[in-house]
């Protein structure tokens, strides 16, 4: 990559304390996010996607969580080392985040006008009136019908899809360089999902942002991402350009995800058909973490595999599997 990445995550490990002991929810996460690039983080629920995003935002709850190792390089600074005040200045300004649950992610007692205007007041020092005018423009940009009348409405007066549009407007308020979208459409109906995805792609183009798009649905990812990192049990198990991944899915987990892509004729996409479940963070298998669920399991899988190049694919295509990509066995 000729240009420096917008964000570089290196060896990121975030831990939580459970019963007096620290356990890694994500371990040794490495990726670069290029300028204008969309990187998708994909995996079932509980694989560590949200924790990765929250670590970047510096929003890991301090009471029982910590970034134990690794670097998060952004504009020459390591966000993992930054203190709360400096992180606050970056959050919502240069790096913004959209959350999965539009129903609970907006404050029920504050008007959406207020909530959209907030970032502008704190980061741009705008007055209430200025910020309000600007908030109106943002709401129009995310295509909220009759936005002017709706500025003083409360979240409960909006549908799920409209609330997610409000969330997007909020995140874009300060024109961030990086947008972290954590399952922004998972809670929405299929038709609304498509509209919101389209809007996100459009705005990303317009604003010239880099985006980390989190989803458990590889099907959604295909339409929006440039590159994909598949996560399993807190680790990246396969990463490739989106075309390479769909051409040559290598890790058995990626295959399983692909075969569980919900079909259009079914409405719910939350049910996954992969047998077994993601191990809890205090019950991680010692070797390959996917081995207990894997049909291709071999004796060698007792040892932890490393990310290795997939032979016959692009050099950026890596997988963490002894059987399928175990170059350095």
């Amino acid at each position, binding site marked *: 990559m000729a240009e420096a990445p917008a964000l570089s995550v290196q060896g990121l490990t975030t831990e939580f304390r459970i019963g007096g002991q620290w356990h890694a929810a994500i371990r040794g996460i490495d990726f670069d996010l290029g300028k204008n690039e969309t990187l998708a983080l994909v995996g079932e629920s509980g694989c560590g996607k949200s924790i990765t995003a929250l670590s970047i935002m510096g929003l890991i709850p301090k*009471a029982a969580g910590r970034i134990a190792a690794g670097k998060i390089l952004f504009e020459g600074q390591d966000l993992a080392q930054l203190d709360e005040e400096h992180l606050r200045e970056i959050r*919502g300004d240069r790096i913004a*985040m959209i959350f999965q649950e539009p129903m609970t992610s907006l*404050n029920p*007692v504050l008007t959406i006008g207020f909530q959209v205007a907030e*970032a502008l007041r704190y980061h741009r020092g705008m007055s209430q009136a200025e910020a309000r005018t600007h908030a109106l423009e943002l709401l129009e940009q995310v295509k909220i019908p009759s936005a002017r009348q709706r500025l003083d409405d409360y979240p409960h007066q909006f549908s799920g899809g409209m609330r997610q549009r409000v969330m997007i407007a*909020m995140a874009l308020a300060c024109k961030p360089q990086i947008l972290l979208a954590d399952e922004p459409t998972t809670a929405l109906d299929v038709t609304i999902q498509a509209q919101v995805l389209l809007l996100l792609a459009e705005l990303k183009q317009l604003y010239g942002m880099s985006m980390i798009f989190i989803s458990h649905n590889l099907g959604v990812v295909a339409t929006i991402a440039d590159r994909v990192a598949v996560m399993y049990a807190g680790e990246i198990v396969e990463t490739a350009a989106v075309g390479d991944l769909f051409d040559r899915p290598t890790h058995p987990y990626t295959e399983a995800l692909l075969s569980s892509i919900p079909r259009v004729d079914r409405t719910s996409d939350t049910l996954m058909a992969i047998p077994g479940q993601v191990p809890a963070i205090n019950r991680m298998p010692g070797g390959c973490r996917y081995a207990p669920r894997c049909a291709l399991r071999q004796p060698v899988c007792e040892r932890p595999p490393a990310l290795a190049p997939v032979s016959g694919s692009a050099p950026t295509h890596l997988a963490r599997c002894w059987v399928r990509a175990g170059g350095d066995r």
Partner: protein
Amino acid sequence: MLQYLIKRLLYAVPTLLAVLTVVFFVARVLPGDPAQVMLGEQAGAEAIQALRVRLGLDRPLVEQYVDFMQGALSGDWGTSLVTGRSVLGEVLNVIPFTIELTLASILLGALIGVPLGAWSALHRNSLVDYATRIGSLFGLSFPAFVMAIMLLLAFAIQLDWFPVISSGGGGSVSERLLHLALPAVNLGIIMAAYITRVTRSSMLEVLGEDYVRTARAKGVPHRAVVWQHCLRNALIPVVTVVGLYLGILIGNSVLTEIVFNRPGLGKLIVGALTQRDYTMLQGLMVVYTFIIVVVNLLTDLTYGFIDPRVKYQ
């Protein structure tokens, strides 16, 4: 809004009628002749009969009921069997004292309890949090009248800052406040203990809400997260508890009233009970029902003030 108020008050009418009916029948259907109960075991038959006539108990039940309801609704609640004065008059005499005391103790409780509870939640498991939790538990479990006596001994007798007999004070505002101070502190501390605990736990819950994380993700400073995003949400359950406790407090202030020798509804009801003042009790039941209705209405109005999801319809 005004429409809503009128509607709510109209809804209260059937409730009041139902309570009146229950009061009427309970007094008559329960075993034991009220006249006999009032006069005691040794009373002669003529005396009992005379009282029965005076109370109208000798007439047919339906006639009594119609009479009773008419009287209750028109404000003619009869006269006290003990003092001979009008029941309504007695109630109206003491109500200002009760309202004054209740409002003052709630105000005090909220002024102490809300900041303390919020602060305790924000510094969870700190020394201050522990102190607050223990203190509020103590405030709840400490008998109110013991605290009342201690306050009296310390501030009225030893230090002589406040009157020993808080009969209410005469005309001037400052004198009234002086008389109100100790009883209000007494009940206010209990109220503060309740409010602290509820505020703390609801604040802890709110701090873990998704929208708080959203606010932080926007870069909202901590102070604004607490004051603008958390506190108002955290107050919703506090209003519930204050509303519930308000009803209890009004009846519960009797020991405080006795220790500080202060007039009030609590004292009136205990007096009526011990002296078997049957007409007075009937009247007080109606008053309490009305108070509960009003308190509920105020609680609902406060919800609407805090929470935009509440609609007045």
